[in-house]
């Protein structure tokens, strides 16, 4: 049985259908990529999986519907990294990472001051230390989180998510604002998590990263699943032009006996996204105001 099963998932918000009838099965230890153009519904899907949005359909973890699990049990199983990296208070990196242990906190009404009975202090400490080391920010632990560079902050937030020690980690564009070196580091880190048995669902815009690091992909467009499965099948030239409206250079690079594909979006398809722009410039050219003003015409 798959670890995460999604059946007939639809999301309707404010009268708009944001996701239509998504079906998905994600295996244990898999690095699963969600791709698609802006507004395709990638973040909505992640939020629905996290039960942060109302949806119709079923989302099950090991056969158990997530909607029926307690918030605490769910928080121990699924960890979520949002796109929003604003932190209201300048807490220290270690305090930030420690927030990931919130789902394991003893309830205050059960004797229940935080960190009191019911909480396993040693397990918490181990999880936090491991998360700090895995993301290589051990030396930053006493720094204020608002004083970190973009790359450091991304790793600190990732450490916060790793500290949850959840079965499934859902990351919404974790590399969006990072330089190439930090993008690769974050993706390598996620890959390494999968090798330790964790399952990662990641939203990506960079198609080369998606192709290189993900085991399988789901391509979304306007709320519907266009293709899902093996990377080569999903990232075909037809899909790239049909969904993204771009012509891409797809190349191959051999490394250690393995052939890796890289995808470089090169030009806009005349018929798709850029068509509007071209028409706009034509209209300008035809405008009488423009023509009258142009001395060379």
């Amino acid at each position, binding site marked *: 049985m798959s670890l995460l099963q999604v059946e007939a998932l639809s999301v309707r918000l404010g009268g708009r259908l944001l996701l239509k009838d998504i079906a998905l099965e994600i295996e244990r230890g898999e690095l699963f990529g969600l791709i698609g153009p802006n507004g395709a519904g990638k973040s909505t899907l992640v939020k629905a999986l996290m039960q942060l949005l109302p949806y119709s359909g079923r989302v099950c973890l090991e056969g158990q519907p997530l909607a029926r699990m307690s918030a605490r049990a769910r928080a121990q199983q699924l960890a979520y990294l949002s796109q*929003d990296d604003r932190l209201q208070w300048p807490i220290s990196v270690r305090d930030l990472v420690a927030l990931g242990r919130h789902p394991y906190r003893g309830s205050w009404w059960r004797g229940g001051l935080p960190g009191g009975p019911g909480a396993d202090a040693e397990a918490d400490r181990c999880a936090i230390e491991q998360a700090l080391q895995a993301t290589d920010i051990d030396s930053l632990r006493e720094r204020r989180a608002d004083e970190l560079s973009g790359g450091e902050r991304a790793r600190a937030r990732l450490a916060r998510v790793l500290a949850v020690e959840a079965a499934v980690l859902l990351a919404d564009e974790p590399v969006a604002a990072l330089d190439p070196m930090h993008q690769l580091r974050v993706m390598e880190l996620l890959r390494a998590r999968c090798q330790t048995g964790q399952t990662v669902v990641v939203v990506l815009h960079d198609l080369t990263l998606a192709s290189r690091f993900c085991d399988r992909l789901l391509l979304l467009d306007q709320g519907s699943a266009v293709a899902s499965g093996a990377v080569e099948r999903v990232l075909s030239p037809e899909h790239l032009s049909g969904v993204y409206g771009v012509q891409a250079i797809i190349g191959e690079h051999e490394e250690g006996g393995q052939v890796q594909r890289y995808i470089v979006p090169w030009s806009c398809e005349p018929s798709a996204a850029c068509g509007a722009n071209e028409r706009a410039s034509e209209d300008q050219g035809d405008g009488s105001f423009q023509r009258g003003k142009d001395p060379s015409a």
Partner: protein
Amino acid sequence: MQANGNPIRLRLGSPALNASLMVLLLGLSLLSLRFGAAPLSLSEVVAGLVGSGPEPHQLIVQQIRLPRVLLAWLVGLALGMSGAALQGLLRNPLAEPGLLGISSSAGLGAVLTLYFGLSAFNAWTLPAAAMLCALLATFFLYALARAGASNLTLILAGVAVSALASALTSLALNLAPNPADVQDIVLWLLGSISDRSFADVRLVLPFVLLGVLLLLAAAPALEVLALGEAEASSLGVNLPRLRVLIILGTALSVGACVAVTGAIGFVGLVVPHMLRRFVHYRPGRLLLPSALGGAILVLAADISLRLIATPKELQLGVVTALVGAPFFLALVLRSRRDML
């Protein structure tokens, strides 16, 4: 290697910080018991407290000055802690019960019961109306914040709520038939803890205790809310429960205090801001120190107004506003880039 022990343990402030604030509070309380129309020495105060001194001293200390000190504690606890909690919930360092119009709404509720003579029916009518109005104002502001209002909008909405409550209060005063009543109400609105009795303390105590417990229960979730609502909820934080705890806790404790002491502003703004760095900016850990700090500030202000020689005794609310308003201005100037 771990300087702070178990990092996820949410101590309610560091023990050293809380202990020093407690010592300061107790010291100021003894000082406050000394000053007044008849200054007493420290030994006379202690003798009066334990009931071994001469009877007039016992009377002055126990019946006149002790209720005043206890009210300062309760008002400070309520304002300090609700300020810190509101700042955590709204993720806005400028949130405060007075600035957001919660105090003046409670004042309006109280004035309305006085105006319509409803307070004559039952001793609980006035505090109940104050708390109800405070609840409505808090809920309105929260709904605005929930709808994605920016920091600036929220503060402006608070100013509007405050202005509306003041306007309605003025209307009640304007239409009041008896000028003597008007003066009483105006003086009361300025905010004061002088000439209060144990009856007032008994009235406020249960609500402040209940409010403080509700707010403290919100502490762990407030910590996680620093990550934003989506990630906090992914970590198992029950957001609706958190909101109810803080709105109810603020309305109960601040509403009850305003009903007895009138509006005392800026305590909830100044105190969390001064203490935040000592708790490493953790919003949950800030609650208890802010409550203690609030009590210290109210008590210190109350002592200072008795020491400053003025033709007429200053009202407490006037002193806190005189100190707090420039502080607020400085804070706004410093954070104006974030707000706009």
